[in-house]
């Protein structure tokens, strides 16, 4: 069970969080202008590395902030964790 160091609350069990997938996916600034390809890239085609991954976690049972977490998807080792909106 992951122990995620929430920058606000401190380290908490994974069960307090909801996962949000890859972090930092840019939403096309003008969706109407985006091609189908660019738009569906944003929707469906995400990074899936075996290794370091930047991802979103929602601290549902704590500060209710979305966190950006660096985590190795193989070892589950954590890197930097920051609030998505400081």
């Amino acid at each position, binding site marked *: 069970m992951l122990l995620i160091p929430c920058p606000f609350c401190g380290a908490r069990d*994974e069960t307090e969080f909801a996962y949000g*997938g890859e972090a930092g996916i840019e939403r096309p600034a003008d969706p109407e202008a985006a091609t*189908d*390809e660019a738009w569906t890239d944003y929707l469906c*085609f995400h990074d*899936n590395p075996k290794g370091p991954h930047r991802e979103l976690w929602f601290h549902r049972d704590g500060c209710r902030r979305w966190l950006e977490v660096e*985590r190795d*998807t193989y070892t*589950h080792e954590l890197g930097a964790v920051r609030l998505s909106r400081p």
Partner: protein
Amino acid sequence: MQRYSIFSLLRGAFSGHRDWEPAWRAPEPKSSYDVIIVGGGGHGLATAYYLARNHGIANVAVLERGWIGGGNTGRNTTIVRSNYLLPENQRFYEHSLKLWEGLSRDLNYNVMFSPRGVINVFHTDAQRDYWVRRHNGMRYAGIDAELLTRADLARLVPALNLSPDIRHPVVGGVMQPRGGVARHDAVAWGYARAADALGVDIIQDCEVTGIDIQGGRVTGLQTSRGPIGAGRVGLAVAGHSSRLAEMAGVRLPIETHLLTATVSEPVKPFIDAVVSIAATHAYVSQTDKGEVLIGGSLDGYNSWSQRGSPARLEDILASASEYFPRVSRLRQLRHWAGVMDMSMDGSPIIAKLPVEGLVMTGGWCYGGFKATPASGWCLAWTLANDAPHALNAPFSLERFRTGAVLDENGAGPVAWGH
């Protein structure tokens, strides 16, 4: 191929079992093959077998980075069924189920396919409407499906908790009688042996590390045992799909997730059907060896670790104990997890990729074991004809571009939501 039968066993008994031949050879890789299949799980091995048997293409190698059957094929809860909602999935999985029904004899290897019935129980009106509708839809697709009352459930699964006083009481169920389980390892081994007998080279401890492409066409593979030339390449690597596709510069709408399964210590049989519980998402069966085999939902985040969280395990075991209270008297023997290829709509991809000669099967989510025969069958067809069969045409990559996704659960483009 040395034929297996009760007589060959008797002969073996008299010769002290000294004369059994290897089930498959351990060849050195040739410098090139007409077709190379990457991934020695059930899907890869089945693909090779059907290429040789159905299409006469036997200059084929299956490259497996570890040992065959060691991926999800060797670690799943072995449920086989075709009780799907969407017509595209119904057709495909029903084709698969039909192949299962003749598989042991086809391969001359007992894969212990056991059609003991797959039951889904529901708890609310909404769930009832959904499950009955799904089974009515199966009937219209020519698939067996039944509605079960609580009395039926009590008869078929006496160990099931039908008390009205539990948190989510069971109000009824549906069943696909032809569904069941099979012996997972035997599926890999049986396909391997049959493919090998038709001339396929099964090469273990051979990791693919690169895909050679010239002029937009695949020409061969880089492997831990050196480069190997290939006319066509089929990827059947489950949770590793995105890595392999990336080697060819292709991105996939697939994420890799953790799914746990667990077994109890073995006891005498007391659960004869496969039961899935809608309220808590757990599924329970008892193997022929006697273990109660329990699965649940994903841990819910990208992972290649094959090690699940104890929190999910508590949850799965609590569900199993709630609905099979007697299970609480058993002890948990072992738990493990797999590397799941979760697609963005919960349905698979069996398709040509945007590189000439490169095709894949993947995105199997929770359900690829049951798909093994049909996935291999379709991928072999696609490789042989350079075009998808009608059965797998809907499972294209383009559907994610056009929006024509096959979202069984209506969960949207959230890989872990399916």
